[in-house]
């Protein structure tokens, strides 16, 4: 399949005017927002049709997602890995690549970083960066083969990254059960990482700002910083420009002297590194050890996050927060209204479908424009408008 995904394609034209940019920004925000609202309405209809109370359900969702410091903390913690995987998928899309296997890059990156974390005894200021770099390098390495295959044989990255993802899943499972397994643990899990390898919680890192103990860790800040960095990389650097050029029109890019092959490989490497970082931050900040299947499908939810953000690195942050809130609030729906948590996946599916189907919006506005034109044409009394 030589298909490029057009999901993240941006037009590389001359700088648009201020008003035009504002209009685009408004559309860029309004369409995902409208998709979320429509999905929630559809969700309510499904709940009602299945004999559940949607009002009670959404109240439960809202309560468990946001009300109380504890719940808000969980929502933010949920969204941290999603920011990284969302960025990973979004970066791929901007180069016309669908990295559906971010999950595997995440697993393998965190496996190696976590493993190293159980062994390493250096000052924290060195340990943490070493492990973060390890996780991203290994994640990138896992995406390297799909990148090379795409660049040389044209093998579709959807297939190759997916296959690599399954291999990573079984490999991680094997290593955790047979190599890293902590004898005292009842579940397949590694030993704990050393104290020097743990990410500080915010109250310890910034005691003058965060007075009370919190579970929020430095990964929260790192996620935001990385999002800004990726935005800068994409929009303000030559590498970012080339990646986007290949994503928007590979043949034009090539004739303009931009190498498709090189940028495809770079884009998948960076995407893999971000996915590896996602898992590593989870291990260093939250779990402190590697266990079998510790990722709750962050790589896959990252796809939803990226699409909802329209592949804008900064848009990934609110999109990740939304899905962090949904996964947390899903439990509330189940507990308070007895609604199966699977409804969250239904909502996600509908959201992506609607975001992808931009054409719905365009078709509606086109029809309106046509009607308007027809109305204007019929005003002076000529018959063309009626004949059409």
């Amino acid at each position, binding site marked *: 399949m030589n298909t*490029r995904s057009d999901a993240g394609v941006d037009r590389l034209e001359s700088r648009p005017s201020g008003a035009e940019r504002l209009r685009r920004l408004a559309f860029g925000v309004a369409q995902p927002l409208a998709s979320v609202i429509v999905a929630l309405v559809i969700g309510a209809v499904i709940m009602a049709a299945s004999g559940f109370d949607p009002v009670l359900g959404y109240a439960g969702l809202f309560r468990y997602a946001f009300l109380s410091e504890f719940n808000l903390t969980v929502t933010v913690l949920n969204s941290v890995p999603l920011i990284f995987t969302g960025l990973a998928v979004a970066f791929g899309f901007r180069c016309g690549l669908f990295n559906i296997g971010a999950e595997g890059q995440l697993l393998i990156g965190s496996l190696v970083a976590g493993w190293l974390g159980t062994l390493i005894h250096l000052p924290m200021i060195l340990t943490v960066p070493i492990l973060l770099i390890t996780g991203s390098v290994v994640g990138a390495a896992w995406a390297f083969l799909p990148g090379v295959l795409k660049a040389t044989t044209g093998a579709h990255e959807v297939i190759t990254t997916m296959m690599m993802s399954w291999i990573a899943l079984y490999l991680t499972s094997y290593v955790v059960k047979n190599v890293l397994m902590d004898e005292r643990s009842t579940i397949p899990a590694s030993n704990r990482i050393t104290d020097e390898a743990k990410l500080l919680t915010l109250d310890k890192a910034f005691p003058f700002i965060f007075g009370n103990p919190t579970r929020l860790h430095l990964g929260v800040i790192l996620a935001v910083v990385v999002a800004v960095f990726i935005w800068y990389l994409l929009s303000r650097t030559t590498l970012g420009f080339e990646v986007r050029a290949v994503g928007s029109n590979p043949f034009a890019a090539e004739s303009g002297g931009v190498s498709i092959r090189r940028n495809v490989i770079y884009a998948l490497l960076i995407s893999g590194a971000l996915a590896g970082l996602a898992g590593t931050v989870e291990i260093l900040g939250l779990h402190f050890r590697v266990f079998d299947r510790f990722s709750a499908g962050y790589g896959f939810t990252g796809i939803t996050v990226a699409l909802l953000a329209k592949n804008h690195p900064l848009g990934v942050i609110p999109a990740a927060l939304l899905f962090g809130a949904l996964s947390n609030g899903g439990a509330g729906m189940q507990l308070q209204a007895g609604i199966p948590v*699977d409804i969250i996946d239904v909502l996600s599916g509908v959201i992506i*479908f609607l975001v992808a189907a931009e054409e719905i919006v365009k078709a509606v506005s086109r029809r309106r424009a046509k009607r308007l034109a027809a109305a204007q044409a019929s005003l002076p009394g000529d018959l063309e408008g009626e004949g059409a």
Partner: protein
Amino acid sequence: MDIAHAFEVIAAILTDPSTYQAMLRISTPLALAAIGGTFCERTGVVNIALEGIMLVGAFSGAVFSYYAMAAWGFGEATAPWIGLVGAVTMGMLFSSLHGLGSIHLRADQVVVGAALNILALGATGFLTQAFFGVAGASPRVASFDPMPIPLLSDIPFLGQVLFDHTPIVYMAIVAAIVGQYVLFRTPIGLRMRAVGEHPKAADTVGVSVYRIRYLGVLISGALGGLAGANLSLEAVSQFSENMTRGRGFIALAANIFGKWTPMGSWLSSMLFGFAESLKLRTQVIDLPPEFILMLPYVLTIVVLAGAMGRAVPPNAIGKPYSKQ
């Protein structure tokens, strides 16, 4: 394990007809979905929603079979057939969503497929609980028994491999042969390939691009639904959450490996089925099960790396067509 013993074990596995019988059985859902994918992609529509279509098929098969017995008064022998019809119908209905997004709304086909996979996962999980009141799995439903073909199943070796199966396994073989004929030897097949290669030219000579693409998508829905029914009505006798477990993606790979032909899809599904049938022998082979489970995926990568020559996709695949 010394070498001589290893050879003995491998020889025993390779000469045992039940290895190949298992291969045919395990490859059936892959083959059906892959052939469906072939038809869909030949008309120019990428279908990564096969996973979701299969899941919907598996769920509907179990639900229809369950209600056929529990509510509609069918017997144990007829109920799975009702399930089968339900699975195919719902598979087609679900795939028409893919058609709506990819053809009419001209959305990114890969993204629409991804959306439908998540939707299928959520909807089947949600409805399992809504219908049966328990999370995770349906109750046991009436399922297909093996139907050995008289006389043919008595042939030594081949009889057991080919002619002692449940009905949908036979259907996969028929789908491969008929599919190959239809796609390459009939006018409608020619139209489908034309639309996938050069939609504008097809349109110019009066072929409706949209209609042909919908046809391709619906065939993938029917065969994907049937593949799902094989899982819930033959492999086991119930639906359980996410029971397709990535088979839709393997089927997609089989379709590519088979170079977008029904026979090729079927043959490459056999290969994946064979790799998976070894999983059943893990005690004998003395390898960690994880490594055997990896095998089909490693195989796919090797294949895509060009061990089998370059696979050339239909020219217009993934490109929405707009009538001007």
